């Protein structure tokens, strides 16, 4: 029976294609039209209640930043534990499946915290970050991280882990750690820019 040329890797190939297209879009002149179009959105963000609070009360902004850091710490912990298990360096005496699934449950909450606090922070300094290249690198990294996590890593580890090529599993774990580290590092770099 004829099978699809993409075979079982259809979703992975589509996701990688989307990420590649996003990268090409971001690093060529193709983005210029969209960049100008979305400027009013960032101007509007500063006028929202979040933007008003973020700009008016430094303490509120800093407290939300701290919440963002705590979300980052928990997300990082989940990634390191889950991917560390796939690499065979953490919790090696607990089955893969339990570690990966339980870490994923906490990961979801940590990601939600990061997104909510991140939107609040973005509203407070919307026009500043609009002009910061490193902010866009972070958003690109974040989009890649979320796509990679939900459309590559998660479907892959949903299979019986013993049946997956160990090299593929380890490469996925390393890619996951690197992409989230990139998101965190570019986020930190926003603080040093502008």
């Amino acid at each position, binding site marked *: 029976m004829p099978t699809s040329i993409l075979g079982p890797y259809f979703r992975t190939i589509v996701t990688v294609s989307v990420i590649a297209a996003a990268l090409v879009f971001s690093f060529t002149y193709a983005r210029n039209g969209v960049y100008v179009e979305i400027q009013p959105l960032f101007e509007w963000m500063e006028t929202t209640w979040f933007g008003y609070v973020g700009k008016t009360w*430094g*303490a509120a902004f*800093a*407290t939300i*930043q*701290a919440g963002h*850091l*705590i979300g*980052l*710490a*928990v*997300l*990082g*912990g*989940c*990634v*390191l*534990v889950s991917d*560390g298990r796939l690499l065979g360096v*953490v*919790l090696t*005496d*607990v089955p893969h499946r*339990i*570690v990966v699934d*339980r*870490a994923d*449950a*906490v990961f979801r909450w940590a990601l939600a915290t990061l997104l909510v606090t991140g939107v609040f922070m973005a509203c407070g300094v919307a026009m500043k970050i609009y002009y910061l290249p490193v902010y866009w690198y972070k958003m690109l990294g974040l989009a890649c991280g979320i796509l990679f996590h939900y459309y590559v890593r998660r479907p892959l580890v949903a299979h019986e882990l013993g049946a997956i090529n160990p090299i593929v599993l380890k490469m996925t774990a390393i890619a996951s750690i690197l992409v989230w*580290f990139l998101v*965190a*590092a570019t986020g*930190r*770099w926003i603080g*040093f820019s502008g």
Partner: protein
Amino acid sequence: MSELIYNFAVWVDDTPWSAMLHESYYMYNWVESTHVLTLMISLGMLFLIDLRMLGWAFPDVPASKIADRLNIPMMVGFTVMFITGILLFYAVPVRSVQSVWFRIKMVLLVGCAINAYLFHKRMNESVSSWDNEAKAPQRIRNGAMLSLGFWTVVVICGRFIAYDWFDCDYPQSAFIEFVAGCVDGQTRF
């Protein structure tokens, strides 16, 4: 006491490496970034241990396993944070010792250490009787909640250090001047 601390900070500030680290844009930022990003290892592991005790994470993994196995990466993370924290202090000593937030953070870190000691002591004494239960006993859960609370405030204080609301070179109330340890006639900020 405040004068003694201030003089010590001025002495540290006068060492050539302190000025070099402070003035080096890339080196200072590398140290600060490492301090912040290591949160993912140190606090990431610590929060997972605390959440396990509260029954909110890894409820079907024995508590002792989570605590034992995540302890090593957590300690590696805290060691890096401690070293980079010392370097950050070394780069900006005078302002740091007179920051209200830095002082609160240091007191809370002592609180965290005492809580961690008591938490591990109580856990080691009783873990065999509840190791496989989703939630730890109440007093262990109290320790985990305290740990989460203390570290959350430590992170908030760490973030607040960057702001100059209560710096000694601005007019402050007598209370803030006392808590921050502002010294009469000080020449450096």
